[in-house]
């Protein structure tokens, strides 16, 4: 046993060296047209060696280490508690939500402009993640091209404004509906496919949309994107220093306060908050309606669901379309917040991030998804000095999360419909 452990440990250490030394230790540097090889600094080489030694030691004493880890007391104090009663849980949920909303309403008036702006971005991701949660978490369909619908929403607003001068509030439902229409059109043929094929087809669709946006320069401006997208107005009031659209009034003039750039940021944040809240509430209702039940039924046992007369295509299609709708919604807000959009914002990585939020939050759970969105968007901003390592750590976190806590931070607990005692 010990000899075998030693052999295995040695093998693992060598593999560690093989996969890290050539890539990390030997750097390709372009000198003019020529490429030359440079050795990395001593620190890197030493850390590679240390890593190999660490792997060797870990594998050698693997059984002991794993054994003592098992003996460690459970760190989670809540691990063994009884599940809460449903009515109690529902009340607690409501209280937490209300507190969150109240906090989110007051908070922007006391912090910096940058934080509010970041918070708006978080809200956009919350909308996206809640929408994708319907598709992945509730209906169990893996959509890797979700960002395409986000792009449709954003571009709808940008183009409608550019060509027809249409305002945010009109574009919002239009963008969402157009995204839903795209979802319907894509979903209709492809939702018959098996899960993994669906994943790759949606991924391909996402790429198609991005490439089209990039190349239809006459319409979308290609890689240069579209700029000058206006901020939302509030009952015909603008937040700029001067009126841009005829017939509008100015916020600071109406209320007779001095002009401040912060007003715009805060109002945008509040609008995003209201829309995110709307998304959460509507989706929450859906889960308790027949449509939500059929998503779950199909996810749980497709064959049984079909035997009861549920059409696989239309049930999946409804989830897919509703998911796309909210992506379009978020896209419109995003376009308005940025003022400028280009295909750069709608790459596959974006889909992966949204998916990571859903998974991290615990598929199907709304509060979990909201917390995860906050974590995924804000943590990298806090760790700016590690910004180089941001994506590296992000990828690593996804892997580790799947290994150690695949059910997410807050796994979904179903709210059951209860049959009241009949008199």
């Amino acid at each position, binding site marked *: 046993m010990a000899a075998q452990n030693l052999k295995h440990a040695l093998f693992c250490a060598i593999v560690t060296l093989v996969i890290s030394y050539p890539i990390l230790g030997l750097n390709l540097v372009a000198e003019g047209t020529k490429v030359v090889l440079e050795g990395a600094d001593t620190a890197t080489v030493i850390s590679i060696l240390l890593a190999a030694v660490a792997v060797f030691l870990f594998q050698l004493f693997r059984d002991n280490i794993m054994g003592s880890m098992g003996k460690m007391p459970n760190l989670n104090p809540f691990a063994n508690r009884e599940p809460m009663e449903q009515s109690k849980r529902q009340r607690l949920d409501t209280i937490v939500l209300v507190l969150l909303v109240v906090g989110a309403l007051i908070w922007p008036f006391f912090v910096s402009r940058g934080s509010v702006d970041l918070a708006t971005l978080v809200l956009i991701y919350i909308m996206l993640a809640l929408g994708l949660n319907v598709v992945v978490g509730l209906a169990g369909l893996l959509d890797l091209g979700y960002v395409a619908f986000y792009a449709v929403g954003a571009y709808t607003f940008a183009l409608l404004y550019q060509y027809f001068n249409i305002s945010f509030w009109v574009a919002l439902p239009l963008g969402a509906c157009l995204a839903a229409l795209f979802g319907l059109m894509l979903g209709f043929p492809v939702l018959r496919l098996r899960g993994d094929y669906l994943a790759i087809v949606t991924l391909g669709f996402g790429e198609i949309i991005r490439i089209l946006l990039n190349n239809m320069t006459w319409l979308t401006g290609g890689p240069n994107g579209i700029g000058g997208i206006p901020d939302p107005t509030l009952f015909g009031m603008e937040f700029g220093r001067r009126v841009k659209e005829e017939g509008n009034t100015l916020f600071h003039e109406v209320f007779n306060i001095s002009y401040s750039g912060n007003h715009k940021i805060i109002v945008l944040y509040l609008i995003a908050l209201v829309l995110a809240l709307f998304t959460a509430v509507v989706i929450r209702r859906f889960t308790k309606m027949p449509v939500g039940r059929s998503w779950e039924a199909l996810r749980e046992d497709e064959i049984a669901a079909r035997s009861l*007369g549920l059409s696989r295509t239309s049930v999946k299609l409804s989830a897919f379309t509703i998911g796309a709708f909210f992506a379009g919604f978020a896209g419109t807000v995003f376009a308005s917040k940025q003022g400028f959009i280009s295909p750069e914002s709608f790459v596959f990585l974006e889909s992966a991030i949204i998916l990571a939020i859903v998974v991290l939050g615990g598929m199907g759970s709304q509060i979990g998804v909201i917390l995860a969105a906050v974590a995924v968007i804000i943590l990298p901003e806090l760790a700016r000095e590690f910004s180089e390592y941001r994506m590296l750590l992000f990828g690593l976190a996804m892997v580790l999360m799947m290994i150690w806590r695949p059910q997410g931070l807050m796994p979904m607990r179903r709210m059951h419909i209860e*049959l009241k005692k009949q008199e």
Partner: protein
Amino acid sequence: MLEVRNLSMRFGGLLAVDQVSLDVNEHEIVSIIGPNGAGKTTVFNCISGFYSPTGGTIRFQGEEVQGKPDYKISRLGMVRTFQHVRLFNKMTVVENLLVAQHRHLNTNLFSGLLKTPNYRQREQKALDRAAYWLDRVGLLELANREAGNLAYGQQRRLEIARCMVTEPTMLMLDEPAAGLNPAETRDLNHLIVGLKEDYNVSVLLIEHDMSLVMEISDRINVINQGRPLASGTPEEVRQNDDVIKAYLGEA
């Protein structure tokens, strides 16, 4: 009511069902029996639309239904259970019955979002109907439990109740007595006959064990290795030499 003529199903080189014909009339319990691997479940899967048969016709209430998608056949009023119980395990018992009633509910998204009176009314009706059926199969006390936590016999009954809330005209049961003890089997037979008498449903039943179906079936079809072997009343089948040979030969 149901007429199956010369049904065949081929998987690659294997002819799993070969020229099977059977009839179910209104207000009748008809059984398909045969040894393991005889193709009974394949016949079922063809009739219920999960497989598209490679030959033959299936008529239900005069309409040709072979090759129609499963959910459409179910909506025509022909609903089935499965050999290995298929419940929505993480949903509660009553929710299982609500899912099955999707066609009786107001599925308009907006009326649901706004909780219109019509929506509430229908939702309440669905709950009432669910309660009625749970009472009928003796599961009312367990209505708010997760379906996956029920005992096996209870799961079987729930699966039947879930079919019945869709208000079918024909119920197809795939080995409903498998895994039940003798007392449970007796209750089940009682339930099946009761469904036929009280709700005017016809029943098509698959059973592996001949003795169980003898008392409740009006007619029996025996198939062996995909081919029809005999059919007739329980008496006729019991005395059929081929059937005796097939069963004794197997035993």
